[in-house]
């Protein structure tokens, strides 16, 4: 199968908040046996927008992301992509709708060179039954693509295992976006990363969103990170989205306060009932 270089990025148009809705989630619920994890999620994501998803452990963030990446179906509710309702039965399914998930840097193969990792399962091969690898073309395209998204790796022949955590994460993100992904789901992309490394990934994510109009949903526990990464933040509490704020309209302190007061009122309700 022959993949060409990704098409050049279209010009960014207007503010992310004003642009087309690429992903819409309506009333999604999910239970595992007696345990109700999602109690009606409503969420939308615009083209080129970076949406942060925060919440306590068990708030349902991971469940929501797993539904969107096709790992399991919701019990109820609907997911629409670019206005058309879709059913995501598998990871492949989600992928064919342009949804890619980056599972931290663990998704790379440490023994394979950077270019092989970038083209894993989408290798460029010569015609013929042996599927001989066209390494020269893959190297060339890998270099060009990494240059395009401003990820600097001195040598695409370096084995992924020899790279730093930040570099590996960057390659993982690059791989997901290389295959024409329009929606990227990132599960704690900055976990276990130093300040300098985090900076690289933050720049990469912002760059991809703005220059290629890739929309992203990022799960993170760290509010400060999310404020730097995201255009908008959704807070999940008890299987619902309780706060939906654009980062430019609020501050770190305000959001923290909102979250705490919402948490208190929930607790109060629970105590009252």
């Amino acid at each position: 199968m022959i993949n060409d270089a990704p098409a050049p990025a279209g010009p960014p148009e207007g503010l992310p908040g004003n642009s087309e809705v690429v992903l819409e989630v309506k009333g999604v619920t999910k239970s595992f046996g007696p345990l109700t994890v999602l109690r009606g999620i409503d969420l939308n994501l615009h083209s080129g927008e970076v949406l942060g998803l925060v919440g306590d452990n068990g708030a349902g963030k991971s469940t929501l992301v797993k539904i969107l990446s096709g790992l399991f179906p919701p019990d109820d509710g609907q997911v629409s992509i670019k206005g058309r309702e879709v059913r995501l039965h598998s990871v492949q399914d989600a992928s064919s709708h342009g949804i890619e998930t980056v599972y931290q840097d663990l998704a790379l193969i440490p023994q394979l060179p950077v270019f092989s990792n970038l083209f894993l399962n989408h290798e460029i091969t010569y015609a013929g039954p042996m599927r001989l690898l066209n390494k020269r073309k893959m190297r060339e395209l890998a270099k060009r693509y990494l240059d395009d998204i401003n990820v600097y790796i001195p040598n695409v022949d370096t084995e992924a295992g020899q790279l730093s955590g930040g570099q590996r994460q960057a390659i993982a993100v690059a791989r997901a976006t290389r295959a024409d992904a329009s929606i990227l789901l990132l599960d704690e992309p900055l976990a276990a990363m130093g300040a300098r490394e985090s900076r690289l990934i933050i720049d990469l994510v912002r760059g991809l969103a703005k220059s290629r109009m890739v929309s992203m949903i990022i799960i993170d526990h760290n509010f400060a990170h999310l404020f730097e990464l995201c255009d908008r933040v959704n807070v999940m509490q008890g299987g619902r989205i309780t706060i939906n704020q654009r980062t430019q309209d609020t501050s770190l302190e305000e959001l923290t306060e909102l979250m705490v007061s919402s948490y208190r009122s929930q607790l109060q309700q629970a105590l009252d009932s």
Partner: protein
Amino acid sequence: MADIVMSPAEPQSSAGLPSDGVRRYIWRFFVAQREITPFIIMVALFIFFSIDSPEFVTSLSLNAAAGFAGPIAAIAVGEVLVLVLGEIDLSAGQVFLTTPWVMYWLWQLGLPVGWAILASLFVAAGVGMINGMITVLLNVPSFVATLATNFILFGIVLIESNDTEATPIPGSLPPQTSSVVPHVGFFGQVIGVWLWSEILWVVAIALVIHYVLKRTRFGVRVIATGGNLLGAAEAGVPVRRVKIWCFVLCSFLSGAVGIVDAVKYGSMDPGNAGVNYILYAVGACVIGGTALTGGRGTVIGAFIGAILIGVLEAGLTIIGVSTNDFYVYIGLIMVVAMTLNGWLDRLAAHTRTS
């Protein structure tokens, strides 16, 4: 957006001092070409035995070395594929012995030689398929699954053959005469009887498998599956299918060269157990630079490792050292090879990042 500079730019080797560049190149070559180390040890052993005992280079000793190394190399080459997956196939040695026996048995039942060979190869591939299925679908560790098939095959051969020798193997020289049986002469002369034919078959197979592992999409999938099973699966690599195929290939290749080996010797003793072969074969892989942890392996290295074992065995015999010593040396070489490989790995990591 600022450029993301992740590590200092590498110095251009061509722009540096030429002697430095050359030294760097040689060094990298050693680190990258894992097969070089066992190759040097093998050549050193060869030279040592030749000097110590000039008759070592006579064709007889070399034949002995090739004869000993042939089966080991044949099994080791296929085994590398399975080891790169992070799995192991302990039944390959028994398949090596069982396949020619199946061929003999079918031939005795009246099947033409060609069909008997085809059918027995099918059986060999089938054993690999079963190994793969048990490992992948039943989640039994391959060490256990293939150990089990190894014993089952050994048992079946013993029961069905009633523990009597299979002879003559079709295509081979009849034991008491020097003439080739006319109707099977082609197999005899080209495929088996000539003492070097087995090793040449193995060389050809090794080159093909080497190429498959380094240059094809299937090779990338094998390395990915062995290097990071979950990561490969998430990227869409059909890891289960890849695993089963590797077991099938390993078994098939062992069986194919097994037939060549049986034709060479003309008879087959059902009491000969495959475990003798497989442990040498895994040893050859390890000596050649294949880790048992998966994701990494070299076919050429495994072949060299097998030849090294052959040279050591024949050499020790010719200089008059007891064959018992041979086992001690093999063990020592394996420990040294493994240590050296770990050391080279760390060194590689160091040179690449600095």
